[in-house]
């Protein structure tokens, strides 16, 4: 084996070319990682939305919460199911939630579609993850709202103490709530009855959130809905599952466009690595001849050059990862195609993403270094020593 020190010293001799190759690989690794982080960020945000033993009743044909409708009669029948957990006061843990979209102007001047969710008194027992981080809770019976912490930064009109005008009334923002980065953080919450009456919606809500004794009862609950002709147009889904499905379209789109682009990119970076390695071989023809004359086998030469290339790409991969990981502090928000409302999310990194980015970088180094290494190993000793 040729010592590793030889490889590293060789790289040091051509600092500029080495640096350029590393930067090239790192840019590709950066974009690759950032794309995966973005797609994963959206998925994670929506997967974390909701609680494991909550279910959501929606109209079967509805593609999002805003296009789902459940009338008052159906709500009362559904609430009679004995599978529903009762609250301390003996009321079923059900929240009949109207969901509407309102337009607010964002910081940059664009318009955002914000989701306003009306909830029932049961909401704190149904969603224990909700914490008030600033201000206070909203009161029932008045036009008050609490705003998710993902929103109020981007939409100055929804900040604490501000009045939002919609449905013929002013709604005072009295608190900021957090659900630790879930999709709810991009919503505004208030009293369901207030919202229904100011929008003249009678008692027709969008969806129902229900707590079941155990998550296994979902199938049984769906059978209960199917059997009743007044209810068979509705279906129940696990709450988390429901929100995870809402992220599919977005994360698919980002992944497909992103992966497509990075594959093309990696082509460029691989070519960069190939050029570097070819010239490394060409410049060191005499050295290679000397090494062969000293008794190093063709295989040692091959592996030395491959290791050099892998080392380069590894450095590039690590640099790219480092750059990309600084993105995890960045929160961005965009329109979710599925729910048609604003969704705030962070770029998030997972162990899988780290591993796939490094493998991706090493793969570029391997492909880029392969042909040049073979050329190096094939050199004829006498010709190489003469520098031909």
């Amino acid at each position, binding site marked *: 084996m040729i010592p590793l020190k030889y490889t590293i010293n060789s790289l040091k001799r051509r600092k500029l070319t080495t640096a*350029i190759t590393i930067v090239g690989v790192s840019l590709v690794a950066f974009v690759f990682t950032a794309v995966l982080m973005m797609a994963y960020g959206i998925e994670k945000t929506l997967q974390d939305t909701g609680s494991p033993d909550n279910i959501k009743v929606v109209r079967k044909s509805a593609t999002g919460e805003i296009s789902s409708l459940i009338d008052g009669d159906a709500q009362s029948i559904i609430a009679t199911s004995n599978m529903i957990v009762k609250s301390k006061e003996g009321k079923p843990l059900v929240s009949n939630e109207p969901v509407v979209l309102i337009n607010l102007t964002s910081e940059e001047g664009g318009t955002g579609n914000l989701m306003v969710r009306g909830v029932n008194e049961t909401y704190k027992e149904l969603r224990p993850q909700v914490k008030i981080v600033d201000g206070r809770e909203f009161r029932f019976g008045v036009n008050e709202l609490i705003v998710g912490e993902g929103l109020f930064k981007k939409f100055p009109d929804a900040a604490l103490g501000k009045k939002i005008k919609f449905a013929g009334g002013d709604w005072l923002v009295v608190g900021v709530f957090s659900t630790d980065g879930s999709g709810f953080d991009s919503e505004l919450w208030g009293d369901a009855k207030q919202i229904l009456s100011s929008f003249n919606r009678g008692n027709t809500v969008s969806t129902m959130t229900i707590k079941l004794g155990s998550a296994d009862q979902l199938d049984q609950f769906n059978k209960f809905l199917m059997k009743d002709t007044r209810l068979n147009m509705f279906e129940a889904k696990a709450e988390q599952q429901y929100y995870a499905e809402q992220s599919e379209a977005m994360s698919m789109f980002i992944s497909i466009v992103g992966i497509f682009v990075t594959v093309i990119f990696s082509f460029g970076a691989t*070519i960069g690595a190939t050029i570097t390695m070819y010239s490394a071989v060409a410049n060191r023809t005499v050295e290679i001849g000397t090494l062969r004359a000293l008794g190093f086998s063709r295989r040692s030469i091959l592996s030395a050059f491959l290791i050099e290339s892998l080392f380069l790409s590894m450095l590039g991969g690590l640099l790219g990862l480092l750059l990309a990981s600084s993105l995890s502090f960045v929160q961005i928000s*965009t329109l979710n195609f599925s729910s048609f409302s604003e969704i705030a999310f962070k770029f998030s990194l997972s162990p899988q993403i780290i591993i796939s980015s490094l493998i991706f970088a090493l793969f570029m180094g391997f492909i880029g270094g392969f042909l040049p290494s073979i050329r190096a190993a094939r050199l004829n000793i006498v010709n190489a020593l003469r520098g031909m």
Partner: protein
Amino acid sequence: MKILKIMFKNSMRHKLRTSLTILGISVAVIAFIVMRSIVSAWDVGVEAAAADRVIVRNSVSFIFPIPYAYKDKLEKIDGVKRVTWANWFGGVYKEKENFFGRLAVDHNTFLDVYPEFLITPDEKKMFMEDIQSCIIGEATANQFNIKKGDIVTLQGDIYPGNWDFKVAAVYKPRDKITDATGMYFRWDYLNERLEKESPDRANDAGWYVLQVNDPKQIAAISQKVDNYFKNSAAATKTESERAFNQGFISSSSAILTAMNVVSFVIIGIIMLVLGNTMIMSARERTREYSVLKTLGFSGKHLTGLILGESLLISLIGGTVGLLLGEMVVTGLGQVVPKTIFPLLEVTTLNTILAMVAALLTGFIASIFPIHKAVNTKIVDGFRFVG
């Protein structure tokens, strides 16, 4: 002339390296063109907006309706030629994944306000006579194999129930940027059924579209409309169709920004690949440059030599990339459903951008080697060992 000859010969000395570099540049240009085309495809909606159309919607958000009663008042406003209206129907066609716009429109005025949807007079007659008829865009009709005379059944969500429509026409788009994916059926059919099934939701329009006599008056008319309904049950927000479509795009701005950033990172990568090649070439030729200098060639000649070679390589790479990129984009345009990207094509602007980017990289990539070649002392150059 001699310099030009040396330039060509130089770039051909390492055929493999030069062709790899050209390949690298062209691949990056392909990526650049594809990204830019996707970003531009987003803007098609804005371009497709007609100058004489104004959208009136509920000020809270577009999901809230406006009373049908507003129609008469809107018609009386000065400068308004025609008033039409529509409701977003939503619903599901066979599978939830089958997405295309489904709207209830006023059959009497819709085709006049939207002249870009082309149907024959016979088809129009049928649309006028049969209350259950609809017209469907060519792209959607082809995708789902729907033909004139077929019955299309939608499962309603916003408007519950099963809804059957008879296809009166498959409309053709007038321009490339016209949306050919929509399905439009008669609003009176929707309203009639709502009056029977849920009377409190009947007699509402999703939004109004005003056709104005003079596009210059749009701002004044919008102001007038919004002031008129300011204190009504449904306050309105009125803006040109262009501004309305722009609003939709700005809501996905984060993703568009990301794609824009990425498309410029690509240029950075081309620069690195080409820069690497040029640095290596110049490095190998350090002694030659010294010979040239000894023979009396000035820094200017060396600059021309290196810059010329760099520009030559980037020009070839850029051209190859553009040609292939155009093919990739056209291919994508055929594969990707029209509902996602109505029009995917390489615009002149993007062609120019790509070429400028390629040449600019050629220029920048040569700066460092030129600097080095010009400033190396002749003696040092001769002593240089690769």
